[in-house]
């Protein structure tokens, strides 16, 4: 492996094929426990693969929708359906309206308890509805 240059990173020019700021990526990496020094090679790779990841996720999300738009919902769907994206599930839940959430809860109550459902997909924070009664 090529010898790593221990010079200060803020003097290093960003490799021309990278878009993401390597200084920021480095900050994030160093916030991780047990990370000591981060040399230029791992830093380059992590930055580059993260860009690839974003591109990949965006393309998949876009292809799964029908319009000429890329929306959060498309991304959340991809995340929920792909197990390799499990690490994103908490930060990218599917979102439903308060009304939908209430309807869902009402349905569940009517059917009785279903113990196999962990209802981790529901969050009711995407819309502001003032009162309890929906229609």
């Amino acid at each position: 492996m090529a010898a790593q240059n221990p010079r200060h990173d803020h003097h290093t020019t960003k490799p021309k094929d990278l878009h993401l700021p390597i200084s920021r990526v480095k900050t994030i990496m160093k916030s991780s426990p047990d990370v000591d020094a981060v040399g230029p090679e791992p830093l380059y790779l992590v930055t580059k693969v993260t860009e690839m990841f974003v591109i990949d996720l965006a393309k998949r999300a876009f292809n799964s929708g029908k319009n000429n738009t890329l929306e959060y919902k498309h991304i959340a769907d991809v995340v929920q359906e792909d197990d390799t994206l499990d690490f994103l599930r908490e930060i990218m839940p599917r979102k439903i309206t308060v009304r939908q959430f209430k309807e869902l809860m009402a349905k569940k109550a009517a059917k009785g308890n279903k113990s196999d459902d962990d209802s981790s997909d529901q969050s009711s924070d995407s819309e502001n509805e003032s009162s309890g009664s929906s229609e």
Partner: protein
Amino acid sequence: MAEKLEDLNLPLTVVTRIVKEVLPDGVAISKEARTGLAKAASVFVLYVTSAATNIVKSNKKKTMTGQDVLEAIKDIEFDRFVEPLSEAFEQYKAHMIAKKSLAGKRKKKPMKLK
């Protein structure tokens, strides 16, 4: 070493630019989608870093290498990135060597020319 919260985020403008480059012209990207992708990218950095750190530890080493990162990417099941990434890495390394040798020439003692 406290980081400000925004330091752990990747810039929205850059993420948007990356995404616009690969989608067809004229595609609208909602603000929520952009924010979501930026957050996902930050989380991904941590995810890869954590996987790479595990490899470093299991090898009883202290410092992360490029190879550790490549192994980590396979561990987290993103093998499909390894080949294009390795190619880019080779180019990067070649570029760094060329840069270093150029810088080194300025520092070396003047060559005796015959």
